[in-house]
């Protein structure tokens, strides 16, 4: 079964609005990462947050992590049409450096 589950599965917003995606996971983690995938392309790493961190920023991205609730959220502020993509959370568990991915959120930003 999937370690991470994103919510919502699909999200449609207007350009300039903020987009929030959530990720829940099941077991203890070393870190949690977010990736973006444009249609027909490989995944691109966005941001990594470690288990002892609560919030991290990168440009228009803000990630929070709540280990007590086993959940994370990705906020994209002032969205652009170019942000249209699928977004995946991935968790790093154990000592093996392998990432387990969720099923993704499909974000559509309307111009």
């Amino acid at each position, binding site marked *: 079964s999937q370690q991470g589950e994103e919510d919502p599965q699909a999200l449609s917003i207007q350009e300039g609005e903020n987009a929030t995606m959530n990720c829940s996971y099941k077991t203890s983690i070393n870190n949690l990462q977010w990736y973006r995938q444009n249609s027909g392309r490989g*995944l691109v790493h966005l941001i990594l947050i470690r288990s002892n961190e609560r919030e991290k920023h990168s440009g228009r991205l803000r990630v929070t992590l709540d280990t007590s609730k086993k959940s994370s959220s990705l906020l994209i502020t002032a969205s652009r049409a170019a942000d249209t993509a699928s977004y995946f959370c991935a968790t790093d568990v154990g000592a093996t450096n392998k990432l387990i991915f969720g099923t993704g959120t499909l974000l559509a930003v309307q111009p």
Partner: protein
Amino acid sequence: DAGITQSPRHKVTETGTPVTLRCHQTENHRYMYWYRQDPGHGLRLIHYSYGVKDTDKGEVSDGYSVSRSKTEDFLLTLESATSSQTSVYFCAIGTITGELFFGEGSRLTVL
């Protein structure tokens, strides 16, 4: 670009035939991964490698084998392809800090 290439990018084959997908990196990273991506399932880990000749199974390893005889190459083999192995296959390399860099994917169709 992360210096990772997959070949072939597209392949159509028939049930029962062997198929080998190749992943090549120029970054000298220790960790390499093979994932498959299917609608509704996100990315699922097939096999991964943490060094030359050091490999281990992921979530969905049945029907797949891997080999890593050189740091730069990680091969995924389907000994006898089945229709359920129709998918998009992604190779990734892992950095020492835990982020993954992905190739552009190999689309395999098994008829």
